[in-house]
């Protein structure tokens, strides 16, 4: 029966693959299993088989697609530039359309609504906080519990940055709209604060329009295409008339850059303006708008979120930022997925756990107890798998802490404009 949706994997995407296999060693699920059917090339072969009507979309197809982390490591490794992430989103859309599944439908309805409705998320945040403090978290399903294990301590009524307007310090370069995000707003206030303060100092007027919503990445990855489109269209409307649209969650900035796919021409315009905060801050450090601090703060292990490194190919920026804070960035053994991967940790807890353990082991051998991670999901996953003497933070937070300290202590250690 082939494909039925407009999002389905496209012929040009599938035929771009020449079966060379060079992506295989970069794929975490292939690495764990040694199984071609858990590899990028195998998944493309399966999509082709469906496209060519050789097989129906059956259990085997669903298993093969669902097991993919959508980490896009294969995409970065592919010499023939196969847009694997896009094709996989298409395959997920087909699963939704062709394989009615009450579990998936419930997940779409509940989670989709939760992440795009701030009020609900705030209620949930309060409930999680209560549960954690009272020990009641023990009764929630273990997959959910381990996904939340790496949460930061969050106040029961966290502040929001929505609606804020901050003036640029010094000469204004333009207006940047900040994506408040879903969990970023209530759970990662520190990252937002650092982002806003640094953007101001880098010369941006920062606005956080209230009508914006969740970027829709989770929905798009999970085949909830109707919701993904709706959210993207809403954001395009909310985030107009600015020079940049900035996100400090790598998964979201990666998705904003693909808005052409989800929200037509308006989406393409937004995609053009979308930046990850690490890019903008690193650029400001490079041209002297933000300081390079010469203090020595020791080593920091840099964990590369897949959607920063593989999807956006941003590798240097987080290193530049922590170096400017006075840390020595240390690379991990490999750049494989930490296993958080959005909903993956709930759907495949075992695999997620194994990858999380691998990542934690790689961090331990660096000898550093400070870890920089530019994506909330990765941060939580890494923290959950490390001992409590490790501190995990966004690179801009580490940098902002240093800049603030430098500002209050006076400019003795400042080497601005060097």
């Amino acid at each position, binding site marked *: 029966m082939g494909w039925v949706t407009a999002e389905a994997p496209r012929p040009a995407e599938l*035929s771009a693959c*020449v079966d060379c296999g060079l992506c*295989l*060693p970069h794929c975490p699920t292939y690495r764990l299993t040694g*199984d*071609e059917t858990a590899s990028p090339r195998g998944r493309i072969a*399966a999509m082709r088989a469906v496209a060519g009507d050789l097989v129906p979309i059956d259990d*085997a197809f669903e298993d*093969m697609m669902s097991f993919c982390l959508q980490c896009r490591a294969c995409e970065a490794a592919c*010499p023939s530039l196969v847009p694997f992430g896009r094709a996989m989103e298409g395959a997920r859309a087909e699963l939704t359309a062709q394989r009615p599944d009450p579990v998936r439908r419930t997940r779409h309805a509940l989670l989709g609504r939760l992440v795009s409705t701030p009020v609900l998320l705030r209620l949930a945040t309060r409930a999680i906080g209560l549960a954690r403090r009272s020990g009641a978290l023990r009764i929630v399903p273990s997959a959910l519990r381990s996904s939340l294990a790496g949460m930061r301590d969050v106040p029961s009524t966290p502040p929001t940055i929505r609606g804020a307007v901050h003036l640029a310090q010094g000469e204004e370069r333009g207006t940047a709209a900040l994506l408040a995000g879903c969990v970023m707003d209530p759970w990662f206030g520190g990252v937002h604060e650092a982002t806003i303060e640094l953007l101001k100092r880098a010369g941006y007027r920062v606005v956080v329009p209230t009508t914006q919503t969740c970027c829709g990445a989770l929905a798009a990855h999970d085949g909830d295409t109707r919701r993904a489109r709706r959210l993207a269209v809403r954001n395009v409307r909310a985030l107009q008339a600015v020079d940049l649209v900035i996100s400090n969650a790598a998964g979201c900035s990666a998705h904003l850059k693909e808005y052409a796919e989800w929200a037509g021409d308006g989406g393409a315009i937004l995609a053009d303006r979308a930046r990850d905060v690490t890019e903008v801050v690193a650029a400001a450090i490079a041209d002297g708008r933000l300081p390079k601090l010469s203090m020595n703060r020791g080593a920091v292990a840099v964990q590369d979120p897949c959607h920063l490194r593989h999807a956006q190919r941003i590798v240097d920026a987080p290193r530049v930022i922590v170096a400017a804070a006075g840390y020595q960035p240390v690379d991990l053994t490999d750049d494989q997925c930490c296993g958080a991967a959005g909903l993956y940790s709930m759907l495949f807890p075992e695999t997620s756990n194994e990858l999380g353990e691998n990542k934690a082991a790689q961090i331990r051998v660096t000898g550093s107890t400070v870890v920089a991670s530019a994506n909330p999901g990765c941060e939580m996953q890494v923290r959950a798998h490390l001992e409590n003497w490790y501190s995990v933070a966004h690179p801009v937070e580490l940098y902002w802490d240093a800049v603030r300290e430098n500002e209050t202590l006076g400019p003795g250690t400042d080497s601005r404009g060097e």
Partner: protein
Amino acid sequence: MIPFSRAQPVMASVWHVTLVRELKDLLGEERVLSDPLRRHVYGKDGGIRRGDVAVVTLPATVGEVAEIVRIAARHEIPVVPRGAGTGLAGGAVPTSPSVVVSLTRLTEIEVDTESRTAWVGAGVLNLDLSEHTAPFGLHFAPDPSSQAACTIGGNVANNSGGPHCLAEGSTVNHVLAVEMVNATGEVLMLGGDAPDPIGLDVRGIVVGSEGTLGIVTRALVKLTPNPPAARTLLAAYERVEDAAATVSGIIAAGIVPAALEMMDQPMTIAVERFVGAGFPTDAAAVLLAEVTGHPAAVTAEAELVRTVAESNHATQIRVAADQAERDLLWKGRKAAFGAVAQLAPDYYLHDTVVPRTKLVDVLVKVYEIADRYDLAIMNVFHAGDGNLHPLMAFDASEEGVLDRVHAAADEVARVCVEAGGSLSGEHGIGLEKRDLMPLVFSEVDLDAQARLVEAFDPNKLFNPDKVLPTGSRCFDLGRPIPEGTWI
């Protein structure tokens, strides 16, 4: 014994059900794949043909491999070993419903730093091995361009080489012993830790046998010390002839560079688009040379290479400043085949050898053939040893294009053989070039090879229909081998 009847109607038959059940009893549900989609996915390697898979197995120990072979033998169904499936000659593609044995889970490595050797599981990836031994200052010398993905088992089976085999030799020069499961499911140990084992060198026969003699489960490999210094040079030319003359000039000057690689312009353009390493896309040919050894010698040799390149009208010479730049240049070269797909969705990669002195003549003919068949062609070669890889990019959905590709490939092979070259530099014969074997081997030669296979595997259990054309055994058909036609 009667040869296996392999023309059985596929699947769903009783034998398939019992076969799958026996395998699942052995390996459990998860490591036996028998649904149509997963079988389909395993039906192909890095080449262009697709075959018929009855069931896929993922053993984790040599004992399991042996047991799988015994089960398959009992069911009289062929066994096809598979590594990473990066082979380009269809070697891991079953020609009839077969048990595919994926060796990817045999990943143990045991290094003996004293003797600079390692016992390596067949499923270990080539580059993983070198990364594993890097802390000891050692690496596995054969470095096929697919080294990040391909397995040691596949390297052994195909006797693979790579850019750095010019000075170091191909896989066969680096394998001391192999552990192999034979057709009766016994585990053999062939060779030993002595470089020149006593008795018949059966190990040497197994290396390069493309999975037709048995399943290699482990290999004892030699490790090579990492060179204390290395320098990589890139030279660009306005004429391919000048690049080729540089290659000959370098060798004539008495230097054996660790690697000496050439790409023509279309190839360079595709590669540059992927890596962005600053490859000169306006040059007709680009040469990559690497010299390794002691720092003083390296500096002197690099200078000499530069001089030779300059005297052969190189328009640009660039020396990689550091390891990162070196890595980037090699990444570009090694991504060459994959990068082609940016130009057209399918490619046919040829692997031939031509005498270095005939390189330019052959190249001119190759361009001419491609022109005549209206195909886009680009070339990469291990120029040092004349291993030529013409690559044709095409769109298989175009009517009749496959016929043109095959006809052109056939002519290219003939041109190379006529120039005194050979059929395969390193990628193996597999299915892809099987029927061209008579171009280089006489009836008697082929008969001898067929007898050898028969001695190991009388019932043609392992990877049947590969390497040797049907009828290689003279009395099989009682008539001369037909002229090599492309299947």
